[in-house]
């Protein structure tokens, strides 16, 4: 891959906001580590219930100060709060809930994704280990009704993350339906990556220039709305 010029896209917070606006009221959602975690800030007060795979349904905002309780954390190991209607349960129930297709949407980060909806997130080969931290990622991919990826469009040094073929170990194959980056919103379709929206100041050509597979440009291509 050639090194690319870094385009000035959305902040991580605004990627999270764009994903938040895609989530529908009345849904159960699980947010992965990284940008997905930031989504919770944007859905407070909405009728969206967060599941945390540690064994909690209706996870509240992050806890601070005296509200911090070492027996109450989210799956990213951050102290959180409970809400009215929160429930706790054990890990087998939690992953039954996940694998059993009770979660409407899981939003995950990724290291690489291709235009078939395959993605890699659990292991960076640069670390030089065959083993790694899988955590709950593969279960969420296998079980959520919809899988969204939220990530920076390229690596810090401008390398492709949206690739033709994964060179990193796959987390799951063909499961991703939507991809949200700092530059664009894309849908994974049977024909490939369909570009629906671009970030303010970014053109479809800009997005294509940092995307290895060929994009299909929606005839309704829009600028992202916030």
């Amino acid at each position: 891959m050639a090194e690319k010029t870094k385009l000035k896209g959305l902040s991580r917070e605004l990627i999270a906001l764009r994903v938040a606006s895609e989530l529908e009221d009345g849904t159960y959602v699980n947010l992965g580590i990284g940008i997905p975690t930031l989504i919770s800030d944007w859905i407070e007060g909405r009728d969206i219930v967060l599941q945390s795979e540690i064994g909690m349904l209706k996870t509240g905002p992050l806890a601070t100060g005296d509200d911090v309780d070492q027996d109450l954390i989210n799956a990213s190991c951050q102290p959180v709060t409970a809400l009215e209607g929160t429930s706790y349960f054990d890990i087998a129930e939690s992953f039954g809930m996940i694998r059993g297709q009770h979660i409407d949407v899981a939003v995950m980060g990724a290291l690489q994704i291709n235009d078939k909806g395959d993605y890699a997130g659990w292991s960076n080969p640069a670390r030089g280990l065959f083993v790694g931290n899988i955590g709950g990622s593969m279960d969420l991919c296998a079980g959520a009704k919809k899988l969204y990826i939220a990530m920076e469009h390229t690596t810090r040094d401008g390398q492709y993350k949206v690739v033709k073929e994964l060179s990193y170990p796959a987390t799951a194959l063909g499961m991703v339906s939507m991809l949200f980056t700092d530059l664009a919103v894309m849908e994974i379709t049977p024909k490939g990556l369909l570009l629906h929206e671009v970030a303010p100041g970014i053109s479809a050509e800009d997005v294509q220039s940092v995307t290895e597979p060929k994009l299909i440009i929606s005839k309704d291509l829009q600028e992202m709305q916030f």
Partner: protein
Amino acid sequence: MEKVFPSIDEAIADIKDGAMIAVPGFFACGVPRALLQAIIKKGTKNLTLTCGCGPLLGAADELRTLVQKGQLKKVIDSYGLFRSASKGMEDPFEQAVRAGTIEFEVYPMGTMAEKYRAGGAGIPAFYTPTGVGSVVEEGVVTNIEANRGKKETRIIDGRKYVLEYALEPDFAFIHAYIGDKEGNLRYAKTARNFNHVMATAAKVTIAEVETLVESGKLNADDVHTPGIYIHRMIQVPRPKFAITID
């Protein structure tokens, strides 16, 4: 049927070198820290610790000591390394994994949960969609190449699944918020995590509880782990955890 032991040392006295011990906890939450410290003190060697989601990252001091004292043969977990690669390079556990002196075997978290649940519930093996399309479907994911045994897959109703097996450790170390003397336990909030399934899976389950009450003090509808799964209990002070992983 009283399960209370006079001391934590007596409760773990028969754990021999080579034992396989289940360690619950989700990072720093719900980890049986007193029991881990007791097994360090006892000096038992050649241990296999079967985890679920990084309890040894939460109990980082205990992990460092276990590695330094050479007590570990193997760790099974879904998330057992520092998130940061650069911190990992300086971590004695990861160094031992890289050197192959400690085996590190990895499964998806839900598969870990289900392996304990199956072990406790008399289900020897089950099919799961989790891991299909990844190296998890191909074989056992471990740093020791010779142990990467093949896994079996099967198409059921048009979807591919991996066959995974029950896990039944010799011992489980359990941390509960409250327990009665017959072993009925309740956990606090997200500290429940792997505690219940591990209590069911092990041949001998030893529970440390922050509060010990008389039988009958827990509402029968509110018991999280029925006493039948608990063989030994001790009361311990509420542990202190830094809620962080790197």
